[in-house]
């Protein structure tokens, strides 16, 4: 039983990361209707920037703040320079460009910082507290950060004029333009915000999985799964989905372990984590494409 609680707790912790990645994916999706396959690599690249700042002696939080700013500008620039000319291109072209970006960021990170695995410091103090047998300080911190991010973004979209303009631009670009919203820049802003969220996710996950160019591939898949579970058009749903997928992943490993111990049959374990994510993705896409909380979109033909 104790082990089960522990598994759920650590599931929540990794779920926090998936939630952040899912949030970033949802942001770009609502702003542009695209799933960004380069999201994970962009986050990984930002995390390296943060690591480099820390290596140069900058304290963690200022380094993270700079990284967020850097990622924001990077995201805006990618949208303005690379994706803007492809506004009316086919889905294939867009997906190919995303894959191109993925390859560039992946190899650049490897080229600049080499492929060796690096330690990334945790910003949270290593204290013991009630329940610290179940969950570490860093895990609590990750969960807190992702919840803060969620509320900040929710507040931004709900209460600020800029947030309103962004939502308008995404939902109905033509009408938004008519009432004076600069739709083009709203899309770029969406990219910037998503990149910034990704940077936070990267900096939070790096102490757990260590820093290396491949660190985000599987996390991205889980982020996708989370976003789909919650509904790809719904930020809060995506966060919930992310947590759910994190817990589910750990429970699968836990029960897999249990069956092996009690029945001596190995069915599933840590080695099948990605397969589990794939099954979740395909199951959701086929059974309930709108996710648990998403709107079903009706296309007019």
């Amino acid at each position, binding site marked *: 039983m104790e082990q089960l609680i522990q598994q759920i707790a650590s599931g929540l912790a990794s779920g926090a990361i998936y939630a952040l990645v899912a949030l970033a994916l949802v942001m770009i999706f609502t702003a542009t209707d*695209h*799933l960004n*396959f380069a999201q994970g690599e962009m986050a990984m690249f930002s995390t390296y920037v943060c690591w480099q700042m820390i290596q140069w002696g900058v304290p963690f939080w200022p380094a993270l703040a700079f990284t967020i700013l850097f990622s924001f500008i990077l995201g805006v620039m990618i949208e303005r320079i*690379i994706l803007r*000319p*492809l506004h009316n*291109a*086919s*889905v*294939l*072209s867009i*997906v*190919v*460009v995303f*894959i*191109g*970006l*993925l*390859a*560039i*960021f*992946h*190899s*650049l990170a*490897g*080229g*600049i910082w080499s492929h060796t695995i690096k330690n990334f410091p945790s910003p949270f103090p290593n204290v013991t507290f009630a329940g610290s047998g179940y969950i570490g300080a860093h895990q609590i911190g990750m969960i807190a950060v992702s919840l803060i991010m969620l509320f900040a973004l929710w507040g931004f979209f709900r209460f600020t004029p800029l947030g309103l303009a962004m939502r308008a631009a995404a939902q109905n670009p033509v009408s938004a333009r008519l009432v004076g919203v600069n739709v083009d820049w709203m899309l770029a802003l969406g990219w910037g915000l998503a990149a910034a969220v990704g940077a936070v996710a990267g900096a939070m996950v790096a102490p757990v999985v260590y820093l290396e160019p491949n660190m985000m*591939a*599987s996390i991205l*898949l889980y982020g*996708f799964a989370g976003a789909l579970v919650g509904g790809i058009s719904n930020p809060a749903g995506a966060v919930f989905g992310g947590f759910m997928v994190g817990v589910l992943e750990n429970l699968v490993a836990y029960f897999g372990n249990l069956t092996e111990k009690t029945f001596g049959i*190995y069915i599933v*374990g840590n*080695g*099948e*984590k*990605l*397969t589990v*994510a*794939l099954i979740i*993705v*395909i199951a959701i*896409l*086929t059974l309930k*494409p709108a996710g648990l909380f998403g709107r079903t979109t009706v296309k007019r*033909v």
Partner: protein
Amino acid sequence: MTAVTAPGAPTADPARNITRTLVIGLVLMAAALPFLVGKSGVISNFTFLQLSLMIVYAIAVLGLNLLTGFNGQISLGHGAFFAVGAYTAAVLIETYGVNYWLTLPVAAVLCFVIGYLFGLPALRLEGHYLALATFGLAIAVPQMLKYKHLEPITNGVMGINLMKPDAPFGLALSSDQWMFLVVLIVAVAMFWAARNLLNSRPGRAMIAIRDNTLAAGTMGIDTSRYKATVFGISALYVGIAGALHAIIFEFVSPDSFRFELSIAILVGAVVGGVASLPGAIIGGVFVQFIEKYADAMTKKLTQAIHLPLELQPWTLYGITLIVLIYVMPGGIAGGLAALWARFRRRA
């Protein structure tokens, strides 16, 4: 996506006849190559292996072209079917001592079935979502190959070593030269089949689905059955390529089929031109060429322009992809066709 040059009716177009003669001539010349060179060593066995690999990748790219270029479905996970084909061949040959020729139909059938089954749920997905599902497939496949209960068959992380078959009938050919012939024969058959498929009624239905699924449906085409079948056929092509790769490369392991392979096939398709049969050949050559020379090329480039950091092959991949989408959305084959059309109009 630009419209393809329509697979026309069998008219007595002189340009068509010239192309046909040219293609047949080139194939015959390629087939004669191993016999002409013989054991003289003018063209090394290693070069023959490289050529074979190019043809193998061309078959794989052709498979993706059928799906993406001619049916409008995106796949980022065709490395998975490549892996299935390769493992099928490796296991059959190594464990069960099956003749390598026989492994090809087995790999084909198996990949068709898996592709069809994967295509069924994928039917409901379009564009980005399909890309996402296949992206997951590509990432998960190496893990699946390491699955504990499959280990007796797949030999886990260690992979399987094979022996390249020798030339039969006492032909004076090295095994690399012989396998080059085998690969060439299979490739010709596969390209011929693809061309005939596209020229047939189902082929036109495939293209109609790509151009406008809804309209195709109202014209009485069973779009979902077609899409799943095309997914299966596409997987079949890639599976055969995988089987051939295992035989000539003499080794399979889970880590040879990582996400990078799926990307390489996609890059090949985009570079060659997704909606073009000759484009698949260009794509195959490109994939093998990059795999072989990208390291050296990027090193030279890094030195030439005095970059402070080490460029990597993937950087070139990425830049090539993005630039091509801008300047030649139809790939090299599409670009050449456009140039040729312009030239003809002038003349």
